Each structure stands twice: as structure tokens, then as C-alpha cells.
């Protein structure tokens, strides 16, 4: 059997913030491998470095030392402008809140990413429909974010993250602003996409019910990996 290559590989990844009086090791020598199809939760107390780690993996932030490889490509040494393009083509983001452009409709928000990727009009139209159907918001496609509920907004954000056909999706506390029922719905959606479409998710969370849905749970303490549990095997799509 051919050896599987990780889609994300970090080697001694470290980020030090020395903006304050004492330098803070927000991420401390993290070495991880993430494979296609994983459904991974990043947990840990507040300030443990979850957001910082996700930002490093997503190429939003530069590491102080160590490396991040996405599909064998070392992004830790890329120029900022090259990183923007890399993110656009390879990584989907879902943030805690205010993900969407307020003056664009749900449909336009999703289409926008593909427009940046210079996809043809026909392809955009078709994919937007698919995605809106996927997140069950076809009837809301012409609403602006302000007209949508928090849960609906996050579902649009997931659809937008998927629109660029990324290698994986990073979600930093995607359910933090949602009530537990809506949070459950969002998790259902993510789990279904993971199960049916083999989409790789890494999400940070504080919510135990969200943690319970993960297949792999990485616990950070003071920026270092304290525990890395495999709860369930990823679905084998091969």
C-alpha cells in the first residue's frame, strides 16, 4: 500500500509574541500531521494558542520558527502577496463572526470567492446553487447577511469556504456565537460534508457538545500539544 501523505504538516511550529512586557510563546514547538478527510477539534483553555495555531496553518500569520507544509508546499517562507493567492486557492476559512460582506447577498458572498479565482460565470452560477442547496439556504440566496440569523450566516460562511474547492477548511470557534441548537445544526452540516464529500475540517472550540462530534481531538496547553486523541477513524473514501 502506498504511504499516505499528510495535507498539513507542521514541524516544531513556534510563534512568539513579544509585543507586551514579557514575550508570549503563543504556539510552542507544535509538530502535527493532518490527513485528508479528518474531522479534527482543537481544544484548550482560553489563551492556549488555538487561534494562533489556526492562523499559522492558514498562512495568515508568520511563524517565529518551524515550518508549515500544505500538500508538501512550505508556506512559512512565502511572501505575503503569494500567500494571499495560496489561501485563495487552497484554504477555506470560517471565522467566529462577521464572515460575510454586509452589502452582498448570500449568493453574491459565495460567488465572490470564485470571482476572485476568475471562474467562469456558468461555473459560478452552478456551484453557488449546489452549495446553497448543500447548506439548505436556496430560499435565502438573495438575502443580505443582516437579514439572516446567526446560524444561517455561519452556514453561508461554510458554503463560501467550500466555494474555492480548498484542500481543507479552518474554522475558529464557528459556533461560539450560536445557541446550542443552531450550533448542533452547523455541526451536522460540517459532519455531513466531511462524511459525504470527504471535506477536511479543523475547528477550534470550547463547546463540549461540539468536541464530542470530532474524530480527533488535539488539546493545547500553553501553546504546546498536551494530548492528541484519535476518537474515530476518518471515513475511507478510497
Amino acid at each position, binding site marked *: 500500500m502506498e504511504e499516505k501523505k499528510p495535507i498539513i504538516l507542521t514541524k516544531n511550529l513556534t510563534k512568539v509574541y513579544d509585543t507586551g512586557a514579557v514575550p508570549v510563546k503563543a504556539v510552542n514547538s507544535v509538530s502535527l500531521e493532518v490527513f485528508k478527510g479528518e474531522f479534527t477539534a482543537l481544544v484548550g483553555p482560553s489563551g492556549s494558542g488555538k487561534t494562533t495555531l489556526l*492562523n499559522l496553518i*492558514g498562512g*495568515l*500569520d508568520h511563524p517565529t520558527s518551524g515550518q508549515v507544509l500544505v500538500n508538501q508546499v512550505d508556506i512559512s517562507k512565502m511572501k505575503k*502577496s503569494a500567500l*494571499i*493567492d495560496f*489561501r*485563495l*486557492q487552497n484554504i477555506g*476559512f470560517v*471565522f467566529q463572526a*462577521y*464572515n460575510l*460582506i*454586509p*452589502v*452582498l447577498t448570500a449568493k*453574491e458572498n459565495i*460567488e*465572490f*470567492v470564485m*470571482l*476572485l*479565482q476568475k471562474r467562469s460565470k456558468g461555473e459560478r452560477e452552478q456551484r453557488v446553487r449546489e452549495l446553497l442547496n448543500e447548506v439548505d439556504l436556496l430560499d435565502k440566496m438573495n438575502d443580505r447577511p443582516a437579514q439572516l440569523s446567526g446560524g444561517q450566516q455561519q452556514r453561508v460562511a461554510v458554503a*463560501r*469556504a467550500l466555494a*474555492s474547492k480548498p484542500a481543507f477548511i479552518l474554522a475558529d470557534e464557528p459556533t461560539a456565537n450560536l445557541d446550542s441548537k443552531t450550533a448542533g445544526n452547523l455541526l451536522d452540516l460540517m459532519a455531513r460534508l466531511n462524511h459525504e464529500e470527504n471535506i477536511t475540517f479543523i475547528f477550534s472550540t470550547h463547546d463540549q457538545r461540539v468536541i464530542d462530534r470530532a474524530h480527533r481531538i488535539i488539546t493545547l496547553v500553553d501553546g504546546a500539544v498536551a494530548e492528541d486523541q484519535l476518537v474515530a477513524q476518518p471515513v475511507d473514501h478510497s
Partner: protein
Amino acid sequence: MLLKLAWRNLWRNKRRSLITMGSIVFAVLLSILMDSVKKGLLDKMKDNVVGFYTGYVQVHGQGYWEDKTLENSFEPASLVTEAISGNSQVTSAVPRLESFVLAASDNLSKGSMLVGIEPADETAVTGLNDKLVSGEYLNQGDQAVLLTEGLADYLRLGINDTLVIIGQGYHGVSAAGKFPIKGLIKFGSPDLNKGLIYLPLSTTQQLFGAENRLTSLVLQIRDNPKSRQVAQQLQANLSDEYEVMNWQAMLPELDQVIQGEEAENVIFQIVLYMLIAFGIFGTILMMTIERQYEFGVLLAIGMKRHILSGIVILENIFLALMGACMGILLSIPIVYYLYKVPIRLQGQLAEAYENFGIEPIFYFSVDAVVFYSQGVVVLLLALALAFYPMLKIWKLDPVKAMHA
């Protein structure tokens, strides 16, 4: 979609955008009105003197303009006429013989300028016949005069009354004559209106004993702004016996006044536009600060910085263009009305103006440049101000922007 995005962003804060636009509309309108009246007044001032009297270029005997006596008059040699007709810019040349005389009625007298003219030529170049307010215009060879209204009033003379002219002719001969007043004319320039007498050229030459002599040839040229070049060209082709002068050289004070006024206008507009600039900048500043987080998200998901900057610049251009266009559209009917019906000062203020030798009327210019120059200025302003958000976007770190 980028255009759509910029357009919708503009209306995110409707009230703020409207206030900003309103301030641009107001400033553009004010600026156009100021510009129009300034330009209108200056054009009028120039027309009153240059257009109706001196013309844009004149040819004299050498030294005449410094020392305006008949001793500096000249007989137009064929050389001169050839040089003039050889210049493609010159469309016609009008001969004059001018001298200072004493104009008198039975018991009043006043120093005045007697201008000997070819009546038909003068009509073509300065439109003198249009200035007629009563009586009739001159014909060639008439033994009669046209008098400016101001002078007639002073001498208490009217049509068909007799004007006595006393002066000194060529080579010191004495010159005196009696002429009936055939018509009265009125000039816009109060100075000119006070003391001009027109007599047919041949009659004037007889009166002064200056057969065939002229003091000046008034040239009409194709492009008035080229008067300086035309004067230089002609001077180069004529001997030192002659002097060729453009109106700026003949009337340096008027030229200075016009240039001074134009500079003053520029200063006023700079101040006005600084005020608008602060208004627009305030709006841009608020927009940029409010949208830090959003910019951060956009950069994170792969929006390129130059596209994002482009959107913000578009927003500024929309804002400025709409304001400027509305200001211009609004000003057109107003300025056009004021152009047709100039503001005429009344009472004491009008007298004060007249005492200073200024016509008490506010003329407005409808020159297209008055309008579009404002639009261009506002647009440039908006582009310059868009530098701030551009710089912000260029330096924006998405992590920090979203950290807030």
C-alpha cells in the same frame, strides 16, 4: 461585481454619504458661481476697453504710445500694409488718427480724445455702431461727430447741437472746428464714456492738417489669446519707425488687474477645496476605521490588496463624481440665468462702483471651462484622498485587523 460592491458600500451609511455629497455639491456650486462672476467681470472689463476701443494689437509710429502727439503720427507706407496683409492671423486693419482736444459747448468745456475713424471699418472691428444710443451713426466724409453720452451730459449737449473743437494740429498748426452732433454712444467702461469724440477720418485729417497721416492701425486678429505672438511677428517684419503693441503692452494696468484677480480666485478656491477635502477625508477615515475587520476577513479569504484598494478608490470616485455632477448640473441654470440677466447694483453701492470707474453690473461667464474645471478638481481631490485607505489596506495585517 466590484462596481456593484463599491456602489453598495457607498450607500451603507446613507446619511453620511449624502452629507458628504451635499458638501461637495455646495462647494462646487459656490465655486462655479464665484468663478463665473469673476471671469464674467474680467472678460467684460477687457471687452469694454480692449474689444471696443484699443483692439488686441495696434501699429503706431515709433514712440507714439509713450508720447501721444500728432508729431508721432505716420503715413502708412505700402510696406506696412503689406506686412499686415501678409500675416495670416490679421483679419483686418482699421486706421485711426487720434489727438487730445478741448471739446466745448457755449459755456462749458472739457478735455477729450478726438478719434478720427473710417466709420465702416470701425463697425466691423469694434462694433462701434452698436454703442449708438440716439441719433445716427457716421458716414464716410461726414462733417459731424459722435459723442459719448457722458461727455454730452457734461457739456449739456444733445443731438444736432453744435460741438466746438479746439486743439493743436500737425506741426503745431492750430486746429479748430464746429461740428453738429450726429449721434450719442455709450461705453460700458465709465472712463471711456466720459470723454470720447468720433469724427470721420478724412475730416479729422483736414482739421489737424495731417493729410494721409494716422496715429494708429488697429488690428483685428483671428485668435485673441495669440495677440502677443502676432505683435512680435509684425514688429520683426517692420522697421524701427513703427511700434507694434499687443493690448497687454498698451494697457499694463488692466493686464495686472486681470492677472491679480485670477490669482485671488485661485486662492479662494484652494481654501474652499481644502474645506471640502476635510469633509471627504472625515468620511473616508470613518469608513476605513469601521471596516478594518471586514478588510481583514477579505484579505484572509484571498482578496488581493490592489483589488480591495480599487474598490475603495471607486467608492471615492463615485462619491466625488456624483457630488460634482450634481453641483455642476445645479449651477448651469443658475449661471445661465445670471448670464442673461446680470445683477445690476442699485443706489449708493452703484455710485461707489462708478466713482471707481467700474461698471456697477455683475456679469457672469458661461465659458465651459468654468464648469468642467470644478469637476476635474473634485475628482483629483477624491483620488488624492483615497491614498489614505489605500495605504491602510497596504499595511493591513488580517490577523491584527480581526483580533480587535
